[in-house]
């Protein structure tokens, strides 16, 4: 048994050490807001924060994470959807099918911590999550809105 700290709570986890964090979150802890898209860290649907850093959880084995590390999932980003990125996403009605959007939001929330006013080039370089519905332009606009603090 190992311990994980997720969204401020400590969880005792029974899983094989090579189990990806994604599946620990989804199947052991029941946090399904973090999505399975590709399993090889190519699409970003599984993005969570580990000590504040956006991380693709589908290739992060349980054994590589210490109990002291702080994991934050979409469910823990804010208690009520009030994180500035979530508010910008709501203001611009960004999602279509929505499946990639929680990972997209987590990637953006992490970016804005290290780079509070990203340029378009910064966004192009840092936000590489896949969206098949095609929300990219609204994602970009919402990033700028969140950075400007204009989402209320």
């Amino acid at each position: 048994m190992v311990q994980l700290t997720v969204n401020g709570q400590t969880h005792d986890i029974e899983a094989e050490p090579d189990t990806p964090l994604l599946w620990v979150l989804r199947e052991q802890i029941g946090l399904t807001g973090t999505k399975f898209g590709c399993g090889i860290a190519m699409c970003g649907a599984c993005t969570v924060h580990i000590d504040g850093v956006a991380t693709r959880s589908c290739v992060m084995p349980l054994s590589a994470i210490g109990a002291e590390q702080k994991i934050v999932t979409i469910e823990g980003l804010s208690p009520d959807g009030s994180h500035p990125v979530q508010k910008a996403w709501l203001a611009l009605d960004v999602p279509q099918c929505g499946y990639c959007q929680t990972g997209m939001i987590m990637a953006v929330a992490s970016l804005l911590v290290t780079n509070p006013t990203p340029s378009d080039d910064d966004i192009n370089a840092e936000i590489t999550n896949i969206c098949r519905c095609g929300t990219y332009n609204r994602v970009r606009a919402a990033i700028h809105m969140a950075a400007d603090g204009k989402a209320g």
Partner: protein
Amino acid sequence: MSIVQSVSRRNFIVGSGATVAGLSLGFHVPFLASASAQEAGANLPPEINAWVVVKPDDTIVIRIARSEMGQGTLTGLAQLVVEELEGDWSKVTTEYPPPGENLKRDRVWGSYSTGGSRGIRDSHDYVRKGGAAARHMLIAAAAEQWGVPAGECAAASSVITHGPSGRTLRFGEVAEAAGRQAPPAEVALKDPKDWKIAGKPLARLDTVEKLTGKQVYGADLKLPGMLNAAIKACPVFGGTLVSFDAAAIETMPGVKKVVKVDDRSVAVVADTWWRAKTALDALPITWDEGPNKDLSSDAIRAMLAEGLEAQEAFIGNSQGDAKAELARVAAAGGTVITATYAFPYQNHATMEPMNATALWTADRCEVWVPTQNGEASLAAAAEAAGLPVGQCEVYKIHLGGGFGRRGNFQDYVRQSVSIARQMPGIPVKLLWTREEDMLHGAYHPTTQAKLTGALDADGNLTALHLRISGQSILAAVRPQGMQGGMDPVVFQGLTASLPEGHLAYTVPNLLIDHAMRNPPVPPGFWRGVNLNQNAIYVECFIDELAHAAGTEPLAFRRKLMANHPKHLAVLEAAANGIGWDTPPAPGRHRGLGQIMGFGSYVAAAAEVSVEKGELKIHRIVAATDPGHVVNPAQVERQVEGSFVYGLSACLYGECTVAGGRMQEENFDTYEVLRMAEMPAVETIMLPSGGFWGGVGEPTIAVAAPAVLNALFAATGKRYRTLPLKNHELA
């Protein structure tokens, strides 16, 4: 949105808070098994009619038969109903009526099929009538309570007012009585120019839960006692399952059972999906690779190339005598140009891999599934369950992308029921890996096209022959739609006069024909379907002809489009939007494309640059005339998204065959458009009224031709074989 549950399932799905966190369960249970109807009915708000439920607190529940997969139909259809209902939009929620209930009620909700950009255009009339009928019944109930003529009463924003006295009643106060009113025999619908809710850029009804992780997709579903399944089907098309060594993995953690699913598939059922997948990866499996084990992309290309020259072909559009005119001009030494294009296999690659959850017992089967067609899912479930359809039910869940993969094809439903049937009484969720999804697609078919055109001395197009060679979708998946051996869908956008989509150009001698060549790769309806490559073939070749004629491409098209003013209107709007009549900035180059499909007229103008072999798409202006616009904000999103889908195919999309199987198994080799490549998109809406066209698909088709024509302007070269990733651009 609630996932409507049957009463028998109600206690079943209430699990621990953690495992069902955020799952909006069917607290309102509108559809009751007859045995329990009376017992449970007392607690339920009555429906006014099939489309509308109003609760005592004034909450309006609109029932939506079509599926929401991102395209916004859920919100648009609700707008149409509530417009006629005169309801308060802020009180609106939605739910999916289960398809089994539709059958029991003589298909009161009509078709559940959500494809072909038909969600709104096929059902706008009857859903509006549903809303209007409910309004009549609410007003009648209020008038009855007041003892006044209904004609003296009117509804607005969920309040009924008696004009002479000024008395009011809220919808919620009369909803129960309204449900007992006789429905009106006839209802008049509003003129769209009077719309207050429909036609407006309202926010989507399904956004909030998608921002917090609360939205439950099929892949996320968790039922108490549920087990999880991972599956492998023979990766070679047409191959079969010979054997597997279950004993080798049965002691691995969490494994419950190894099951043969069908003639080509084996699954591992475990407590968690990750353990099921891990055990499946370790399972020794013997396949019979079957007759296609040597099939390759080269062989398929050769098969199609032969069709380009074949004598026999199905004719989709013919005027005059194109072959004779082309021969005459060639013999006379006139201008005849020829070009050959090719479009490869594509995978839908929905972000949410295929999945379904099934619970089977000897007398009932239930399936929870993200589906574009709940009735098709129900039929597949009943067949796989070996039960009458009346003993089966499907609960629909929002889709993590559909794009045509989750409509006609219900393979994952059949598999999930087959697995559940071997685990009676236990719900089992089947979830595909991305690799399974890429290897077992319903692929956008591959075609090639040879185009030959003749120009007279004045640069007028006097003859055009478009020969398409390649795969028919209908022949494989809907043979009842074939017409005397011909697949009419092959000619999307190219026919003479069909309202679904006809050719804009009037050419005195025209022949568009199809040599059907069907490789043993399963084809499917991929968002935009055959319009995608047909628009590339026609619009890029028209650009080639304009260049050969020495005429500017918009002017060249305009001469041929005099009989098709709606096609021309969107083309000119896109051209004006990009500034076609003014020169682009140094280093920038422009291209145009237009087509009609799914009942709508669409066009795009692209502005690109090429530097050091790298294409950058800076800006696209798109114009669309869908007749009516129900939600302009959603139309904008569909148009923008169409460029992501169309340009992903243009730049990267290609599934290649070797050894009888697809080679691309994940997004590392099946690349798609990402943020960095996304151009700015401006959307111009030109709804001209009088018809209802679709929005979700047509614009995809003009993405590639506009960019390819701009790429020619930039490089002086034609890139006729997609995707562009296979070419050095210079």
